[in-house]
C-alpha cells in the first residue's frame, strides 16, 4: 500500500480529508441524474416491452460495442498518463494524453455515423419512447464526451508549461476521474440500449 507522499490523492482535491469534495461532487451528482434516467428507462420499458425490444434490435450492436472498446481503451491511456504524472515522466504524460484524445475522437465519429443513419431512416426522438431515451441518453452522454475531450485538450496544453507545478497532479487526476465517468456512463448505457432487447441469433 502506498504511503506518505506517494499515496494517491482523493478526488484531486486540496482538502484531502474530505473524500466528497472537488470533482467528485460533480461526478456523483451527474451519476445520480443518470441513474434516475436509467430507472425511468426501465420503468417505461416494462410498460412497452415489445416496442423497446423491437427498437433495440434495430440498433447497431457492433457499433455500440466498438464505442465501449474505444472509451475503455482511451480511459486506460489516461490511467497511464496519470501514472506517468505521479512518477514525473513529462513526455509520457503528453504522449498518453494525446493517444487518449485520438482514440476518444473515434467515439465522436462513430456517433455521427450512427445518428446519421437513424436520421436518414426518419427515426427521431418522437418515433417512440425507446428512441426518446436513446437520443436523450446518447445525446447527454455525447455532451459529457465533448466536455471530456475539452478537458483532455486542456490538460495536454497545460502540461506544456505547468507539468512540474504542484497542482498539476491534482488537475490531471481530476481530468482522469471525469474521463472515467464518461467511460462508466457508456458502460451502463451500452447494455441498457443495445444489449437488453437484442435478439441474439439462434445457435446452429
Amino acid at each position, binding site marked *: 500500500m502506498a504511503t506518505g507522499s506517494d499515496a494517491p490523492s482523493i478526488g484531486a482535491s*486540496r*482538502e484531502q480529508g474530505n473524500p466528497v469534495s*472537488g*470533482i467528485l*461532487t460533480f461526478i456523483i451528482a*451527474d451519476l445520480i441524474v443518470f441513474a434516475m434516467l436509467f430507472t425511468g428507462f426501465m420503468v417505461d420499458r416494462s410498460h412497452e416491452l415489445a416496442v423497446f425490444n423491437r427498437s433495440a434490435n434495430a440498433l447497431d450492436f457492433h457499433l455500440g460495442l466498438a464505442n465501449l472498446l474505444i472509451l475503455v481503451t482511451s480511459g486506460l491511456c489516461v490511467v497511464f498518463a496519470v501514472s506517468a504524472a505521479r512518477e514525473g515522466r513529462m513526455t509520457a504524460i503528453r504522449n498518453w494524453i494525446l493517444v487518449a484524445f485520438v482514440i476518444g475522437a473515434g467515439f465522436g465519429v462513430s456517433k455521427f455515423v450512427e445518428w446519421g443513419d437513424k436520421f436518414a431512416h426518419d427515426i427521431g*426522438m*418522437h418515433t417512440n419512447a425507446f428512441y*426518446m431515451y436513446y437520443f*436523450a441518453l446518447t445525446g447527454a452522454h455525447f455532451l459529457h464526451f465533448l466536455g471530456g475531450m475539452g478537458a483532455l485538450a486542456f490538460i495536454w496544453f497545460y502540461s506544456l508549461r505547468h507539468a512540474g507545478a504542484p497542482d498539476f497532479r491534482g488537475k490531471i487526476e481530476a481530468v482522469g476521474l471525469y474521463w472515467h465517468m464518461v467511460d462508466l456512463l457508456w458502460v451502463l448505457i451500452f447494455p441498457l440500449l443495445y444489449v437488453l432487447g437484442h435478439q441474439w441469433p439462434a445457435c446452429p
Partner: protein
Amino acid sequence: MNDPRMFNTEAYFRYYNPVLTNEAYFRYWRACAAMGPVFLAAFLLCWGMLGYNIPPIPADWTADQMAAHFRTHYNEIRAGMGGAMLFGCLYLPWTLAIYKVMQLINRNENDIVSTLQMWGGALTVVPLVTSSVFWLTGAYRPEELEPKTLQMLYDQGWLLIDMFYFITTIPMVAIGMAGLTDKREKPLFPRWACWYSIWAGLSFLFELLMPFFKTGLFARQGWLNFWVEFVVWFAYILVITYFTMKAIPRLEKERAELLDRA
C-alpha cells in the same frame, strides 16, 4: 503597507479604504445575502402554490381545460403572480451579496468572473418576472379571452422561464469557477459547493428538450425537467447563501487584520 496585496491599486481602493470602518464596509451584506432564502420561500408560495405552478399544468391539457383553470382560479393566480413579480426581484440583492464576496476571493485578480455573476444573476430576474406577466395576463380577463389564447399565455410563460435557463447557468458556473481559484488554505466556497454550482448550472441543458415534448420526463411538468431541475436550482440557492453568509465574517476578520497591519 508591507502586504504585497496592497500594491494593486484597484484592490487598494476597493478593499483597503481606511475611511470606511469594517462595520461600514460590510453593512447590508448579510441583509442582501438573506434575500436568497426570502426569495425562495416567497417564490415557492406565490409562484408555486398560489400560481399553480408546482407542479405545472401539464402541457398536454386542452385549451378548454386551460381556460377552465384560469376562469376558476384567476384570483389566486393574480395574487400569486403579483407576489412572484415582487419577490422575484429579491434575486438581485442576493446576487449582489455573492458578487461582493466573490470580488474578495482573490483580491489581486481582475473581477470579470464576479461581474459576470452579477450580470447573470441580475438578469435572472427578467425571466422570473416576465413569465409571471404572461400568467397574470391570462388571469386578468379570463372570461373574455379565447381558450387558445389562455393556453398560449400559459405556454409562453413556461417556455420563457424554462428556456431562458442559460442566463442562470452563467452566474452558477461563474461562482464555481471563482471559488475553485480561491488561494486560501480553507476556501470561502468549499470545492464541493463550487463543483455543485457548476454541475447544477450545466444540468439545466436538459431544458433544451422541453419544447419538443408535451408528456414524459422532458415536458415542462416532467419529473426531470421540472422536479429534478427546480429542486437542483433551489438547493443551489440555499447552498450558496449558506457559504456566502459564512464568508462574510471571515472577510471582516481578514480586513480588520489588514487595517491593523497598515
